[in-house]
């Protein structure tokens, strides 16, 4: 039916008005009368025993209400126990605040509560802590070395997780193969660095015996469950409310220690308590990601076809497990083969604990996978002196291969890698580039074109968690209500931080219900209002959130039309539809306005229920839950064009082009914005960002002066082409997207740099691609 499709429209965002005019309400904007402020005292050592903590001077300081330490928190809360029933993962338990040992620089050891943050910081400076420093385990190598200090008694040798897998006969084939190509990929430790740091406000109501917890968090209900459990409260004693969030990218999901401490303090002191992290704390202690090294071995034929592939992956995880240690690495290993046909595949993944900030999922936690897979293909091409595009093609899955069962059990149903690759090569005029590249090289100018093919897992339905033995589910819940006056409210368990949900979900509900999007209001982030859902992560917003809202909206529409049929004295609602809030009837093949509005139907449903069809309940709303497929897969091909100044090693990205198939595009401008942001984050990470710990475990990148995020100068113009069709596997027809941009940009920019440097016979396999690293490759050669 033409003209009725609201999903797929480029609606401008409703969120914009308040955000543009300074009327957004982020956590720190919320005023709470009488709230106390906290400041955490953090360890200056990477690894040390905690001796005495002298708080006397701090307690006397102006404005100080109290100073608390790990032993206090141990009375009020349960410890953090991460002991998933996953083979190869060892249990780890840590107190809410450390009592015996600090495990990384920035580990919070004590907390000051004062009447304002300035005074709290003053008092924090007066606390004297007697540390007995221990050897710092400051790298994966140091963690696994003989005689290395153990961070936890339950993890001797510091390997907290190890998984081994073989599908087919990879080892046998590789050991007897004629040609085996090896490649290595070393990814840098980075951090999410959302523009808004973490923060929270806890208000314990002693009369109600209830905690109201305001926090910017991507998954409000799971957070509520964790808070209740750790505080030894009933889940109904906790309400989580999320205000506007200034970016999250995965850093604002799990219940972190500081938030739990603030909640416990509010209950203990029976006063509102609040915390806003400063940027140094955020860079030091909020959560890191991606420090992984991968080595691949591929047995290949003379034309580059991969017979078998193995992956050896080592992860430098940091000191605390807020997520199962294999949580992120697991997905890398699972989807590594991506868009390629590889029937013999095996891996060994080891995760080590180190004296660094703990790792967590950061937008595209599996980011390294595409770089590793396409990088392996490029290594094969170099070794065999073949065109890397041809080696990609010879291994690439075609339509005839689908659905494709990966050795790891993942099933690729409707991906289109060849189409995306062809599209992107056309967009960048691949042959034309090669010609210009040759001319440039003759003049001593080194440009490169890099490619990366991405298969992006998203959605993560319950079947995924079950198969992975990870506790948790992947369904989403939602409700749609038509109010007595015809206003439409809707909610689901997601929480955005810039995703545009208020706009896109209104479009979904509008289409499902048959009203205008402007009449739909979306409510997210309040656990007393929204249904229990699994939150925003894994690029599941469109598929899971959009999916459940569409289903719920359609259910409400069905009821409304049944009521309409009854009011119009019709036997059936089959010839009725709802459009723009008005009931239309098909008479002699033409749709005609019946004059009956949703508003009228609603008023009957609420205020004249005896006029409803027999047996029908009053009201006009629907609650639904939807469990999406275990996984949906989007795919894309990235092309990155760079200029490398071989004298200085500086890499300039000139243009980045992507052809993506994410199924139905629910709102093109929002989807494009997500792609831009993902590409930028990937390029920034690959070129500029790095959390650096020295060999004593000191974090030397604790401010924005040292931790460099790309600006508008470093991020190039980006061009996106959409390819593909709605999938039949989800209600909205979308497949999930927003992380693939990171996967592809990391792979493509590295590929581009290698392409530029090809005349020198060097290969970059370590991130970031800093000027000094590039120069180190070229030294003595150029």
């Amino acid at each position, binding site marked *: 039916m033409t003209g009725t499709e609201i999903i797929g429209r480029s609606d401008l965002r409703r969120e914009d008005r308040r955000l543009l005019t300074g009327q957004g309400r982020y956590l720190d904007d919320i005023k709470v009368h009488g709230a106390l402020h906290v400041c955490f005292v953090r360890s200056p050592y990477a690894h040390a025993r905690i001796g005495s903590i002298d708080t006397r001077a701090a307690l006397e300081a102006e404005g100080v209400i109290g100073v608390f330490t790990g032993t206090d928190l141990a009375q009020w809360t349960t410890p953090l126990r991460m002991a998933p029933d996953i083979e190869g993962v060892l249990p780890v338990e840590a107190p809410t605040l450390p009592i015996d040992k600090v495990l990384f620089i920035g580990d919070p050891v004590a907390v000051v509560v004062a009447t304002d943050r300035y005074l709290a910081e003053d008092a924090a400076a007066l606390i004297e802590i007697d540390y007995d420093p221990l050897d710092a385990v400051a790298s994966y190598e140091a963690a696994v070395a003989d005689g290395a200090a153990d961070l936890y008694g339950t993890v001797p040798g510091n390997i907290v997780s190890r998984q081994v897998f073989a599908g087919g006969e990879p080892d046998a084939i590789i050991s007897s193969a004629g040609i085996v190509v090896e490649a290595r990929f070393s990814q840098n430790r980075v951090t999410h660095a959302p523009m808004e740091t973490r923060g929270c406000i806890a208000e314990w109501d002693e009369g109600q015996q209830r905690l109201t917890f305001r926090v910017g968090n991507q998954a409000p209900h799971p957070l509520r469950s964790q808070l209740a459990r750790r505080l030894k409260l009933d889940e109904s004693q906790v309400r989580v409310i999320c205000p506007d969030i200034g970016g999250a990218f995965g850093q604002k999901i799990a219940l972190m220690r500081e938030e739990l401490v603030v909640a416990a303090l509010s209950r203990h002191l029976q006063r509102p308590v609040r915390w806003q992290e400063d940027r140094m704390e955020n860079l030091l202690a909020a959560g890191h990601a991606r420090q992984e090294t991968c080595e691949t071995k591929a047995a290949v034929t003379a034309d580059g076809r991969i017979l078998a592939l193995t992956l050896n992956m080592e992860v430098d995880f940091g000191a605390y497990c807020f997520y199962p240690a294999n949580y992120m690495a697991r997905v890398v290993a699972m989807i590594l083969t991506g868009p390629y046909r590889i029937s013999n595949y095996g891996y060994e993944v080891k995760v080590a604990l180190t004296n660094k900030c703990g790792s967590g999922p950061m937008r595209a936690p599996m980011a390294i996978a595409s770089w590793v897979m396409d990088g392996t293909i490029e290594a094969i091409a170099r070794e065999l002196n073949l065109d890397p595009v041809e080696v990609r093609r010879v291994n690439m899955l075609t339509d005839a291969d689908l659905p494709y069962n990966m050795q790891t059990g993942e099933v690729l149903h409707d991906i289109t890698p060849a189409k995306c690759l062809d599209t992107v090569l056309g967009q960048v005029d691949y042959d034309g580039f090669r010609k210009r590249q040759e001319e440039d090289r003759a003049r001593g100018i080194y440009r490169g074109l890099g490619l990366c093919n991405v298969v992006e897992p998203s959605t993560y339905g319950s079947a995924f968690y079950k198969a992975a033995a990870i506790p948790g589910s992947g369904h989403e819940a939602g409700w749609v209500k038509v109010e007595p006056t015809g206003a439409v409210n809707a909610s689901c368990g997601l929480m955005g931080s810039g995703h545009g949900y208020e706009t896109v979900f209104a479009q979904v509900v509008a289409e499902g219900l048959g009203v205008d999007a402007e009449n739909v209001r979306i409510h997210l982030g309040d656990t007393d209002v929204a249904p229990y859902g699994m939150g925003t992560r894994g690029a599941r917003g469109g598929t899971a959130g959009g999916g459940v809202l569409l289903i719920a909206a359609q259910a409400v529409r069905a009821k409304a039309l049944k009521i309409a049929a009854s009011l119009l004295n019709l036997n059936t609602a089959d010839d009725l539809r709802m459009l723009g809030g008005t009931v239309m009837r098909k008479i002699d093949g033409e749709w005609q306005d019946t004059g009956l509005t949703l508003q009228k139907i609603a008023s009957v449903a609420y205020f004249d229920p005896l006029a409803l069809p027999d047996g029908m309940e009053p009201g006009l709303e629907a609650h639904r839950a939807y469990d999406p497929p275990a996984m949906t897969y989007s795919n894309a091909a990235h092309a990155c064009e760079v200029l490398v100044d071989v004298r200085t090693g500086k890499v300039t990205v000139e243009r980045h082009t992507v052809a993506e198939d994410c199924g139905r595009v629910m709102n093109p401008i929002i989807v494009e914005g997500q792609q831009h942001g993902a590409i930028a984050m990937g390029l920034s990470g690959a070129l500029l960002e790095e959390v650096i710990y020295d060999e004593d475990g000191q974090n030397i990148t604790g401010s924005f*002066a040292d931790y460099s995020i790309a600006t508008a100068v470093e991020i190039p113009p980006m061009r996106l082409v959409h390819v593909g069709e709605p999938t039949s596997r989800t209600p909205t027809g979308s497949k999930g997207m927003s992380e693939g941009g990171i996967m592809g940009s990391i792979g493509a920019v590295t590929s581009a740099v290698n392409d530029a440097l090809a005349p020198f016979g060097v290969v970059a396999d370590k991130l970031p691609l800093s000027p*000094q690293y590039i120069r180190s490759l070229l030294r003595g050669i150029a």
Partner: protein
Amino acid sequence: MKPARFAYASPATLPEALSLLAGHEDARIIAGGQSLVPMMNMRIAQPELLVDINRIEGLSGVRFDGDHLVIGTLTRHADLAANGLVREHAPILAHAASTIGHYAIRQRGTIGGSLSHADPAAQLPLIGMLLDAEIEVKSTGGERTIPAVEFFEALFTTTLEPGEMVVSIRVPVLPNGHGWGFNLFNRRSGDFAEVNAAALVLGQGAETSVRLALGAVVSAPVRVDDMLPPFNEANSAWAAEAAKVVAAETPVEPNARIPEDYRREILQALVESTLFDAMRRS
């Protein structure tokens, strides 16, 4: 990060400011604050008294006294970059000022503040050294003029005595037809330089002299004119040769994050293009 407490004074006259500095050992001047305030907010710097000189009249602006530009200490980078006199008589100074940090930083940052902060990677100390600037300094005890080469002592350290304050900077006017070059190397737009270089080509023919100043290689910007090979002809071969010599011979202080061999390579590339730019412009 919130700063530690400090007392604050905002004198309306220069003598009042100097008197405050003289009377308080642990006083610091705040001008633009773009370098000082981050340090204070992180509690790396904790002065007991902040003397705010922004209200003092007559400390900003540029005037021309015949053979020198006299630049008030409070002259903001943006104003320096746009100033007609500077653009005419010392264009390298205007250009360098336009590259400092970012647009908003340049609205507040001042020349006096930048020189006093003495970051070896900063633009204005480098240009000050190149142009043989003279820094006019006052205290309750009197006044003196410090040549740039004696002003920058070490990392974030000048030869200002306690109680002394920069009031103006005298920059010799450059002759018509001079050539200048300025380049900095950073990883990201607006960052401090990992290496920077500034050059002047003065005179013609047999009278040609070349000046070269380098920043961020040791703890203060340095002039390395003496290191340059004899100048016979303005061409790219000479620039390349000069860059090679300078990169090989100039002292480079070790830095945990930037290895020496790499820094010398950047230096070579930068010096070559800077000398070439200067020759081209002359």
